[in-house]
C-alpha cells in the first residue's frame, strides 16, 4: 500500500496568528518590520490591562463563591465563614497566569507553545497507524499471558480493565459506522447496547438459552431497533437528528425502568448465566473447564476467556466494517456523508442506505451489549444512561471520524485514562496527605480532552484512506472530507 499524504489547500501549518499578521501588513501596505517595531510596547500594556480585567472578573466571582462559606452556626441557623486569603490567592493566580499567557502565547508573533502545537498537529497519521496497528494487536493478544506470568497479583484488575477497554473499542467501532462513515450523528447509541444486554439477559434467564444462541439473536434484535429508530429520523439532519436519537436513548432506558413485569424495573436482572467455553462451564470440580482440560482450577480462566471473547468480537466488528466500507453499500455510506442530494441524483436509495447504516451499527452495539450482560452477570437500566452514549461518541470523535485505529487508541486513552487517574495517590506527596486525587479525576480528564480537541480538532486520525484506487492509494487530507452533520 503506497502512501502519500495529499497536500491540502491550507497545508500551511504555521501558527494562525503569524499568517494573519502578515496578511494585515499586506492589506495596510506597511512592511512587516514596522509592525514588529510597534509591537513590544503595545503587548506589555495590553497584557497588563487584559490580566487586570480577568483578575477583576475573578474577584467578582470568587467573593461570593469562595470568599463566603456557609457553615452550621450556633443553634439551627447558618453562619458565614470568610476566606479572604483564598480569594486573594485565586485572583493572584489568575492575574499572573493571564499575564504570562498574554506575554508569551497570545499576544506575540511566536508563541512558546507554537513548537508544541506544531509537532502535535504534524504527526503524520498513517505511518503511526501502520506501525501501531500490528503492535496494538500483538499487545492485545499477549496481554493475558504477560500479565499472568509477570504480575499475577494485578492480573485480575488489568484484565478487567482490558476487557472494559475492548468493550468500548467495539462500541466505538460500531458507532463509527453510523457517525464516522454515514455521517449520522447518533446520541442514543447506548439504546442498542441496552437492547443487546436485555435481549441476552431475558432470553438466558427465562428460557435458559446459551450465550452462543443469544448472541446473534441480540444482534438481530438490536439491528431491528436500529431500523425502528431509523424510520422516523430519515428526513432529519444534523442537530435535529441528534435530538431525536438522544430522546430514543432515553425512551429505551425509561421503558426498561418502568416495564416492571418484563425487565424487573430499576432492580435489574441478576443471575444472568455466565458464558461457557462452548458448553463447558467455568466451575470448580466435575465437568468444569479446569478439570476437562486437566488444569488446576483458577478463577482467572473465566477472566481470560471473557477477555479473548471480547477481543474476538471487537476484531469481527473491525474486519466486517472495514470490509463493508470497501463494498458498494459502504461507499454509499461515505457518499451520503459527503452529499446526500448528489447520492439521490445517482439513483442511490438514501432511505435504505441510512437504514442499513443504523442497523449495522446497532447490531454491533447489540453484540457488545450481550457480552456486557454475560460478563457482569447483572444489568440494570442505570448502566445505560446518556453518559455512556456520550462516552462512546467522544471516543469516535476523539479518534477521528471513520478511522478504526484512531477509535481504538481513543478508547484506550479515554477508558484507560480514567482508570489510571484512579491511582493518583502519588499526588499526595506533592499536595499533602489531605489531598484526595479522585476528586480531580474528571477535571484532569476534561482538560486533556479539551487539549486534544484544540490541537487535533478532527481527531487523532483525521485523514481518510480511499476505499478503491486506480494506481496509488493516496491518503485524503482531512480538510476535504465532510464531517458528519447527520
Amino acid at each position, binding site marked *: 500500500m503506497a502512501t502519500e499524504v495529499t497536500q*491540502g489547500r491550507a497545508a500551511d501549518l504555521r501558527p494562525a496568528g503569524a499568517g494573519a499578521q502578515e496578511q494585515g501588513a499586506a492589506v495596510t501596505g506597511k512592511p512587516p518590520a514596522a509592525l514588529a517595531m510597534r509591537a513590544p510596547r503595545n503587548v506589555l500594556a495590553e497584557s497588563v490591562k487584559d490580566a487586570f480585567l480577568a483578575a477583576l472578573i475573578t474577584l467578582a466571582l470568587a467573593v461570593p463563591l469562595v470568599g463566603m462559606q456557609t457553615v452550621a452556626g450556633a443553634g439551627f441557623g447558618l453562619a458565614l465563614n470568610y476566606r479572604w486569603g483564598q480569594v486573594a490567592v485565586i485572583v493572584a493566580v489568575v492575574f499572573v497566569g493571564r499575564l504570562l499567557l498574554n506575554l508569551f502565547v497570545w499576544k506575540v508573533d511566536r508563541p512558546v507553545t507554537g513548537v508544541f502545537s506544531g509537532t502535535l498537529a504534524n504527526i503524520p497519521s498513517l505511518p503511526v497507524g501502520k506501525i501501531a496497528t500490528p503492535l496494538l494487536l500483538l499487545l492485545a493478544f499477549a496481554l493475558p499471558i504477560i500479565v499472568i506470568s509477570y504480575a499475577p497479583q494485578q492480573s485480575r484488575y488489568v484484565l478487567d480493565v482490558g476487557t472494559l477497554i475492548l468493550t468500548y473499542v467495539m462500541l466505538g467501532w460500531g458507532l463509527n459506522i453510523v457517525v464516522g462513515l454515514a455521517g449520522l450523528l447518533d446520541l442514543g447509541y447506548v439504546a442498542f447496547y441496552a437492547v443487546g444486554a436485555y435481549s441476552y439477559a431475558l432470553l438466558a434467564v427465562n428460557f435458559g438459552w446459551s450465550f452462543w444462541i443469544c448472541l446473534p439473536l441480540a444482534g438481530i434484535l438490536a439491528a431491528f431497533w436500529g431500523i425502528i429508530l431509523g424510520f422516523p429520523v430519515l428526513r432529519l439532519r444534523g442537530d435535529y437528528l441528534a435530538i431525536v436519537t438522544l430522546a430514543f436513548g432515553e425512551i429505551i432506558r425509561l421503558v426498561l425502568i418502568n416495564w416492571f413485569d418484563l425487565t424487573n424495573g430499576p432492580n435489574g436482572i441478576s443471575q444472568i448465566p455466565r458464558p461457557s467455553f462452548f458448553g463447558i462451564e467455568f466451575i470448580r470440580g466435575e465437568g468444569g473447564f479446569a478439570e476437562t482440560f486437566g488444569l488446576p482450577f483458577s478463577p482467572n480462566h473465566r477472566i481470560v476467556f471473557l477477555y479473548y471473547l471480547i477481543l474476538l468480537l471487537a476484531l469481527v466488528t473491525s474486519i466486517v466494517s472495514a470490509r463493508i466500507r470497501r463494498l458498494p453499500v459502504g*461507499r454509499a455510506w*461515505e457518499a451520503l456523508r459527503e452529499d446526500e442530494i448528489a447520492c439521490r441524483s*445517482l439513483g*442511490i436509495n438514501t432511505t435504505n442506505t441510512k437504514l442499513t447504516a443504523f442497523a449495522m451499527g446497532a447490531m454491533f452495539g447489540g453484540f457488545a451489549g450481550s457480552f456486557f450482560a454475560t460478563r457482569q452477570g447483572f444489568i440494570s437500566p442505570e448502566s445505560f444512561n446518556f453518559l455512556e452514549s456520550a462516552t462512546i461518541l467522544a471516543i469516535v470523535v476523539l479518534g477521528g471520524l471513520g478511522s478504526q485505529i484512531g477509535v481504538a487508541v481513543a478508547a484506550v486513552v479515554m477508558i484507560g485514562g480514567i482508570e489510571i487517574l484512579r491511582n493518583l495517590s502519588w499526588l499526595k506527596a506533592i499536595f499533602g496527605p489531605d489531598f484526595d486525587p479522585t476528586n480531580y479525576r474528571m477535571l484532569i480528564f476534561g482538560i486533556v480532552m479539551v487539549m486534544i480537541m484544540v490541537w487535533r480538532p478532527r481527531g487523532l486520525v483525521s485523514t481518510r484512506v480511499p476505499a478503491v484506487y*486506480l494506481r496509488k492509494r*493516496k491518503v*485524503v487530507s482531512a480538510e476535504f*472530507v465532510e464531517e458528519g452533520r447527520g
Partner: protein
Amino acid sequence: MNRWESDPILTVEHLSMRFGGLIAINDLSFVAGRGDITALIGPNGAGKTTVFNCITGFYKPTEGRIALAHSPEAFSQLPEITAGSRVSAGGSLYLLERMAEFEIAKRARVARTFQNIRLFGGMTAVENLMIAQHNKLMVASLYTVGGIFGLPAYREGERLAMDKAVYWLERVGLTERADDPAADLPYGAQRRLEIARAMCTDPLLLCLDEPAAGLNPRESADLNALLRFIRDEHKISILLIEHDMGVVMEISDHIVVLDYGEKISDGSADFVRNDPRVIAAYLGVEDEEVEVVEQEVGL
C-alpha cells in the same frame, strides 16, 4: 414537423410549478428529441433550473405530465399509463412527475449534474465514478452478502465498474488525477468529473445544469467536443441549461427559450437566434422603438 417531435425521448406537457404565490413555471410544454442536444435557455430567473428539478424529481410539479420513453413506440401507451401507474409494463415509459428522484436516476435512467458542483469532495475521482455505479454493483455484490465473502461475481462486477470508470476518466482527461480527492481538482476538472460521474450511471437522458459556467474558452471548446462525443458515440440525449451562447448555438440541435416561467420560443438554433421575442427578452427592444416611446412620454 420537426425531427424532435417525430421521435421524442422526453415530453413535458402543461408543466406548472408554484412555490406559494410565486409561479416559477407556467404551463410549459416542450419535447426533447431522442439523440438530440436540447438546450433550455433564458434570462436569469426564467425557471430553467426549476424545470430541471421537476424532470429529475427533486421537485414535485404542481401540475403537468413529464413522460420519458426508452423506445420510440412506447409513447402509444401514454394514455393508459397516465390512468394507471407510473411505469409501463415493459418498463419503457415512465411518468417522471410520479417518481422519486433516485428512481428516476435508477429506473428511468435520467442522470443530472448541478449548477453548483456536487461532487463527493472527500472521495477520490475514481471513487466518485464507482459510487455512480452503485445500483449495478449492489446487484453484483448480492446486496452486500456476496461482497463480504468476495464471490467471483462481485469481483467481476467491480472490475467492469472500474473499467468503465477508467474509460470515462480518460474521456474527460483526468486519468492522472484519478486518486486525488475531487475537492482538490481545479474547477474545470470538477465540472468534467461531474459529467463523467453522471455518465457512469448509464443514462439515456443526460441533464446538464450550466456545464460551461466558469470555464475558459478553451475548456468550453473541450466541453463542446465532449458533449458531441456523448451524443454521437453513446447515442445519449442531452438536455442542457446554459448561458454561454457560444456553447449553446454551436452544439444544440434544438433550443427552448424560457422567460418568466413561460416558453417564448422553440426551434433550431437559427430560428431562435432570429426570433424577435428572444431578442427582446435578452436585449430588450431596439433603440428606435425606445426612442419612439421616449418621445411620446416627452423625454
